[in-house]
């Protein structure tokens, strides 16, 4: 008896995992299709959730249908029709909609083929509304993972190490804001498109970075979140194949993700780019990144900030050893990036690239120009870079002071130790005057 029970329980668990998987695959398309019909993303998501609950109830008895997406959509639409019929207050407003839904259902028994063509348009509309600039970046990220990534509130909460009620509330508020402000379910066009696309890319990259440099939590990296961001990015690249910056972002993420294995050592310490074992870089992801860059180049010759960062990452990815790095090219790319998005940190990176390409003296001139930059006043990499260049130029007493200054500014104990060791080596150097 108990053996049968446990067998039954195991079967139930497998089925639940299968339904979860179906949901992961189909939910975005189902929600996107319903959003077009109801013109209300929040309602569409609620209806899709109800269909999921119905599936969890019915599929254990009936088995998983051959076309689960069509089943979920049809079930959600029936709920929509019921809801609209019941809702007396909004009856008149919704009567038309209910008729449309019914007509739609009658004229299109084969949901899959009818939904096939407009589905990518609907998905793209869903991307743009989930990443609407009216919402905070945090809300956009949560809503995007929920609506397009098929993640549950609990999964999003765990990914961002935020209590579940906070995420749930964030999503509810976001959906309410979209409804209250009557944000249209559409793909923006004309000059608005670029700004709106930036907002989408920002959200995807935020999700990626949350996983890649894990600002909070026990782990240095949370690979699952990187995978979610990559999946969203790859999806977006197929939805908007003519946008070079989308391919640029995908390339940047693929190449950064290719270093996942190499950037943390066995004790969990971060490993800097030049100290990484390049044999551990994932060549498949590098290849995908380089291909994405090529796709962007085929569209046109303009380069946005994501594509430029991807190309810088690609220079490192192509170099089998650090000395093989094409530094003159990195200098050009940083120069272009600095013109597009001026920032002292980019200038500092450019100075490092210049020193690697054209010698420490050329680099030092650029670094000295940044000395008065207030935003870098407490940035330990400024004195650290300057110290390194001074050391290479044989100006050891000055280098020592800069290494010590950098050591005082860094919050990383290992790095502080390294900087103090280098400072000490300046003192005892026999060539020291």
């Amino acid at each position, binding site marked *: 008896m108990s053996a049968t029970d446990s067998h039954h329980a195991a079967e139930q668990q*497998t089925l639940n*995992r*299968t339904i*979860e*998987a*179906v949901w*992961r*695959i189909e939910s975005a398309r189902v929600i996107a299709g319903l959003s077009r019909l109801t013109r209300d993303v929040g309602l569409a998501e609620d209806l899709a959730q109800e269909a999921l609950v119905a599936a969890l109830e019915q599929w254990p008895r009936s088995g998983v249908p051959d076309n689960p997406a069509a089943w979920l959509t049809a079930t959600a639409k029936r709920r929509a029709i019921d809801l609209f019929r019941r809702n007396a207050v909004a009856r008149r407003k919704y009567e038309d909609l209910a008729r449309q839904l019914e007509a739609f259902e009658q004229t299109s028994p084969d949901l899959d083929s009818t939904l096939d063509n407009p589905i*990518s348009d609907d998905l793209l509309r869903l991307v743009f509304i989930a990443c609407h600039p009216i919402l905070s970046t945090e809300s956009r990220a949560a809503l995007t993972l929920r609506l397009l990534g098929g993640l549950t509130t609990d999964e999003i909460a765990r990914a961002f190490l935020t209590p579940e009620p906070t995420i749930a509330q964030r999503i509810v508020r976001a959906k309410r804001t979209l409804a209250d402000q009557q944000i249209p379910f559409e793909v923006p066009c004309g000059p608005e498109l670029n700004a709106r696309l930036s907002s989408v890319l920002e959200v995807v990259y935020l999700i990626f*970075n949350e996983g*890649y*440099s*894990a*600002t*909070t*939590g*026990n*782990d*240095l*990296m949370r*690979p*699952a979140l990187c*995978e979610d961001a*990559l*999946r*969203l*990015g*790859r*999806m977006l690249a*197929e*939805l908007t194949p003519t946008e070079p910056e989308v391919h640029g972002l995908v390339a*940047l993420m693929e*190449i*950064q993700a290719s270093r*996942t*294995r190499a*950037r943390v050592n066995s*004790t*969990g*310490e*971060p490993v*800097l*780019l030049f100290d990484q074992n390049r044999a551990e870089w994932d060549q*498949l*992801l590098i290849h*995908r990144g380089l291909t994405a860059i090529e796709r962007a180049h085929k569209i046109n010759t303009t380069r946005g900030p994501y594509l430029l*960062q991807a190309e*810088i*990452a690609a220079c490192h990815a192509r170099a089998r050893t650090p000395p093989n790095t094409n530094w003159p090219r990195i200098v050009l790319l940083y120069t272009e990036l600095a013109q597009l*998005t001026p*920032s002292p*940190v*980019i200038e500092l*990176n450019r100075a490092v690239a210049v020193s690697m390409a054209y010698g420490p003296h050329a680099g030092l001139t650029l670094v000295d120009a940044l000395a008065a930059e207030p935003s870098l006043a407490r940035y330990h990499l400024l004195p650290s870079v300057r110290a390194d260049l001074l050391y290479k130029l044989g100006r050891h007493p000055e280098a020592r002071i800069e290494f010590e200054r950098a050591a005082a500014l*860094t*919050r*990383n*104990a*290992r*790095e502080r130790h390294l900087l103090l060791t280098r400072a000490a080596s300046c003192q005892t150097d026999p060539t020291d005057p």
Partner: protein
Amino acid sequence: MRFMVIVKATPETEKEGALPDPQLLLEMGKYNEELSKAGVLLALDGLHPSSKGARVKFSGKSRTVIDGPFTEAKELIAGFSILQVKSLEEAIEWVKRGPNSNPGSDYEVEIRQIFEMEDFTPILSEEQIQRKVERRAELPNQTANK
């Protein structure tokens, strides 16, 4: 997590120079496009018949080369793809959605999980976890510039 989807061979796929049915190619193309659009397909390749391949047998210090073709089609591989998905169940669901690429004979598609970094991470001691907590916020973001 990543899975390798291994498509086993059939007598048809083992035939030399045999070209697949154009209709079938179209269906496969559509399916692969769907996988790409969902962002789950990382790589995909088909293999030549085993007559164009070889086996190297390892025994102690000796290495013996055996030229193809090999018998037992169902133990051979005709192609593979790499999917990045959330669970084995998701990989199964994607594979089930694929068209039958060989209606003439039965064949199997095997789904195997690829080792990831996490799989090699040993159980951490309290001290190591503490160190990770201290270091995590200081992990340099090496490509982002802002």
